[in-house]
């Protein structure tokens, strides 16, 4: 009896330690986001006084108005949304098509084509050769540079193919007996059955597209109408470390100094993070399932 009591007391202490640790963990993870959110909704001049934690002191929408009235940022948001939507649709379809071809056990080039694609996960030309190629293909300062180079990713292909391999073989065979060709089988039978895997891959692609900025800087820096939201945020942030907020200087000036560079930065950060923070809780399960499927390599 005494032993059990002692053990349950130990358990309680252990539970408390774990509880405290997890509470700290949650605070550390969420605080920076909540703090930025609070500052973005607070009056710019008032924020300079400091002391804002997770709730705005003087509520104001001025920061967001400044951001949304900046034509450069709205254009960048439009580009970000377009590239995300277009790339997701096109890439998911093509990745699934390749996965279908490579899931057909009888396909004679299955092995060689698989190896060619899997190798791309380990070998690549690097920054400069890729840049030279994009220039030669006239893809610099071209919207297509956001779509074409990443058309099919080997990892995503493996995720979809693993799912397809789990479908019963009889599906394709009976469709073939009925006289359907491979392309029709893919579109009408296999594609609708792969929805969970497609959703996972779509999310990976969409998040990657929304978050990417380096291609924008490397290939489209000279055409201001093609830059993405993340790149615009990056410019603002790196200006802040280097020259103390010069990146937002024109916005601060134009707004009649109701906003400050810090509050503008917060507002842009939140706008850029919003789609992900907002959609994330609903999509979580797809991310996780994708990770576990992808882990099962052949």
């Amino acid at each position, binding site marked *: 009896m005494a032993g059990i009591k002692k*053990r349950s007391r*130990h*358990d309680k202490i252990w539970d408390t330690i774990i509880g405290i*640790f*997890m509470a700290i*963990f*949650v605070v550390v*993870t969420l605080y*920076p*986001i909540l*703090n930025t959110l609070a*500052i973005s909704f607070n009056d710019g001049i008032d924020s300079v006084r*400091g002391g804002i934690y997770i709730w705005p002191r003087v509520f104001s929408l001025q920061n967001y108005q400044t951001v949304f009235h900046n034509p450069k940022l709205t254009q960048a948001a439009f580009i970000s949304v377009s590239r995300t939507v277009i790339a997701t649709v096109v890439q998911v379809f*093509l990745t699934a*098509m*390749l996965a279908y*071809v490579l899931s*057909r056990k*009888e*396909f004679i080039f299955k092995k060689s*084509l698989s190896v*060619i*694609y899997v190798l791309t996960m380990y*070998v*690549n*030309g*690097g*920054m*400069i*050769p*890729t*840049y*030279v*190629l994009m*220039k030669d293909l006239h893809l610099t300062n071209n919207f297509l540079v956001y779509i*074409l180079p990443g*058309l*099919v990713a080997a990892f995503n292909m493996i995720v979809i193919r693993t799912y397809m391999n789990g479908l019963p073989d009889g599906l394709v065979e009976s469709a073939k007996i009925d006289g359907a060709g*491979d*392309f029709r089988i*893919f579109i009408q039978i296999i594609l609708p059955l792969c929805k969970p895997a497609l959703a996972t891959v779509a999310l990976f692609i969409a*998040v990657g597209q929304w*978050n990417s*900025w380096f291609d924008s800087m*490397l290939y489209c820096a000279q055409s201001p109408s093609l830059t993405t939201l*993340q790149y615009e*945020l990056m410019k603002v*942030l*790196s200006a802040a*470390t280097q020259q103390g907020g010069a990146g937002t200087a024109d916005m601060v000036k134009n707004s009649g100094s109701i906003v400050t560079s*810090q509050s503008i*930065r917060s507002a842009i*950060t939140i706008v*850029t*993070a919003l789609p*992900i923070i907002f959609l994330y*809780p609903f999509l*979580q399960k797809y991310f996780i399932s994708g990770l*576990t499927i992808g*882990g099962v390599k052949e």
Partner: protein
Amino acid sequence: MELGVKDTKLHVKIKTKKNIIEKMKKQKTLIIMSIPFIIWVAVFCYAPLIGWLIAFQKFKPAKGIFDQTWCGLDQFKILFTDPTFFIVLRNTLCMAIINLTFSFICSIGFALLLNEVRRVLAKKFIQTVSYLPHFLSWIIVTGLVQMILSPDPGIINQILLGLHLISKPINFFADPKYFWGIVGMTNVWKEVGWGSIIYLSAITSINPDLYEAAEIDGAGRFKKMLNVTLPGIKPTIIILLIMNIGNIVNAGFEIQYILGNGLIQDVSQTVDIFVLKYGISLGNYSLATAAGIFKSLISIVLIFIANRFAKSVGEERLF
């Protein structure tokens, strides 16, 4: 006898050749479907490999890649005599090792502790929170880091001031000694939850009998965690460690690029930034490509060593 064997072999050969052509005819649609993918992968994944030739030339962007002046290994000689290159190489390796160690220990520790949370709802909530930073872009994360470490003062400076550990706010971004730590901690903040998923799934496959046996032996929960759970996920830990070794030359790029400034560039610049600076900004494509190739070579060698190592400890090989 021998002749007979040869005969059948020949026969089989002819038969398979016929078979292949017949098969190809049968699989016409599959072959047509795969043609665009062959073209795409050749152009966008394998053509850049031809671009490695740039490193052995004095590359002038106006001319085609085969009309350049060749210069052998001159670019590599320039590279290895450039003191900046060794600084960026050191920075890359040090930051990568710091990142790898920090995030490994923290992910494993976090998975072990999260496994001890007994309320299902609380566990789910903590997990959801912990994955979130993984999906935020490095740009956003860097913005958050600027905010909390700001000397304005941000929350970290406020806490340190409040505890009287410092008398005036520290400017974390102006002092080289903080930079690697900031990068390492940010990496942990962003990836610890995501990194723990794989360990948590490994924990669920540990045989429950082991816990029962430990309980009979009088082990408390802490002891069980240390003596049953941790050894139970050891194979996973080893595999992931090996898989990550090839990544040691990738210390990241975004955070160093954005937070780096003139005051701390001796510790903040990585090989990727070096390539970007020499190649794109200064137009020295050849030198930048040479640096990129050197980085890839290190990475390939490391992957092979890791693969060998995996084989020798009897773990599943990567390829």
